[in-house]
């Protein structure tokens, strides 16, 4: 017989036998996998940030396919991504507003009293020792736990103060949980006027430890006129994100401690070269 024929028969026969065995085993050990999960996962950003509340993008994809979650819950996806996932699954996408993080403190090294601290350079550890190395019990500790938690590099520690790069922030909320002082909140990206203070203490007590604390002088409230742009909360004033103030309110109110300021002015030179 021709050697080539034998070779073909031998290899072909071997392949056939092995194929049959694999086929049988595959039947016996079959595992159901929904192909759509992979499809959704491909369309997700793959940052595995956990901002959606699931263990990672793969887990979230499973949730979406199982209709336990909607694509819009992914804080990182752009509107286009969400639409593409919705189209893939044949469901209607919900529009969502882009949110960014804001650190409600403006007490950098130049503006606040600090106590001497000797220990682990991490906010969540520092807060265990006398509340951290800050005169103000509510202020940013500046050790950068939030910056470490940010998978997108959107938080920078500038002169002992955490500053958010709004253009890099995707709103995954990882930093919110990382801050031991609960300073970080999610705000609509369209709003740019924030009160950078979170101390509920009396104005005089705040002024002792911080030059840029909100002393509740209400100048900004007066400047708002009829509109309820600003909300008074004890000795602290907050931006009303339901009815956000226009950027020129900052100038109009002439905040004496400059606790009320534009996001782009949060820290000196914070947005050099940034797109926003």
């Amino acid at each position, binding site marked *: 017989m021709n050697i080539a024929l034998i070779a073909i028969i031998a*290899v072909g026969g071997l392949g056939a036998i092995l194929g049959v065995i694999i086929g049988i085993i595959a039947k016996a050990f079959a595992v159901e996998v929904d192909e759509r999960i992979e499809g959704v996962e491909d369309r997700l950003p793959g940052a595995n940030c956990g901002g959606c509340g699931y263990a990672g993008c793969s887990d979230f994809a499973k949730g979406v396919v199982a209709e336990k979650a909607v694509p819009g819950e992914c804080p990182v996806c752009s509107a286009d991504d969400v639409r593409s996932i919705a189209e893939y699954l044949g469901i209607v996408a919900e529009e969502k507003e882009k949110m960014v993080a804001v650190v409600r403190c403006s007490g950098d090294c130049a503006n606040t009293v600090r106590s001497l601290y000797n220990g682990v350079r991490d906010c969540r550890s520092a807060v265990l020792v006398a509340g951290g190395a800050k005169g103000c019990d509510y202020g940013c500790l500046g050790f950068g736990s939030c910056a470490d938690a940010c998978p997108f590099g959107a938080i920078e520690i500038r002169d002992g103060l955490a500053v958010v790069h709004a253009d890099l922030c995707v709103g995954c909320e990882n930093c919110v949980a990382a801050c031991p002082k609960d300073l970080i909140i999610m705000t609509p990206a369209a709003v740019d006027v924030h009160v950078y203070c979170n101390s509920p203490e009396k104005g005089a007590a705040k002024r002792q430890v911080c030059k840029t604390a909100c002393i509740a002088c209400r100048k900004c409230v007066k400047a708002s006129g009829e509109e309820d742009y600003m909300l008074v909360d004890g000795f602290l004033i907050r931006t009303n994100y339901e009815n956000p103030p226009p950027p020129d309110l900052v100038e109009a109110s002439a905040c004496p401690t400059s606790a009320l300021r534009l996001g782009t002015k949060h820290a000196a030179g914070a947005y050099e070269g940034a797109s926003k």
Partner: protein
Amino acid sequence: MEDRDCRSLFHCYDAFLFLGVEKHEVVEVMLSEFLVITVGAILVNNFVLSKFLGICPFLGVSKKLDTALGMSGAVIFVMTLASLVSSLINTFLLVPMELEFLQTLVFIVVIASLVQLVEIILQKVSAKLYESLGIFLPLITTNCAVLGCVVLNAKAAPEAIQSTWYGATIYGFCSAVGFALALVLFSSLREKLDLANVPKAFEGTAISLITAGILAMAFMGFSGLV
């Protein structure tokens, strides 16, 4: 030295008789080659650290000890079985039919099917391990260690123990154990390196390769043991 070292292995004697291997053959196997194969394949001629085979999974699956253990198990299984099956096919099919030129082709088919089997079974039995092994499980197919082992068996001199089916199996098993040893050692080192303050330029693969190099240096000490 040989006379002293192998007495303890005599309990295997009956098993080999049972398998129909001749008595004098057993004694020969026991006394001269068994130890050479085991110590040789595991330590002296370690597949990873001495022959530099199977580097891809060695670097890829050694980030975590648990994954490395899983991979080790899978490789031991595939390599032992591949050695056995290939040796049988080689001895009883390819050599009698003078088809040695097909060796590489056939071996790859065998290995690929075995890996396929492992993958299917693993996915059902331990989904977690399946996920953590990820892409590296199918990659065993192209793991040169497995093919290398099988080819080495096939190319062994006719009088060497590796040319028999049981010798080939033992060799495959021991080589895989050597691979597993290197992988597990390396992964525990890498877990430690995770905590280290490695200079930025050397992070990741660079420092892993350096560590592997030093590990290979330590393995050099075994040379000449058998």
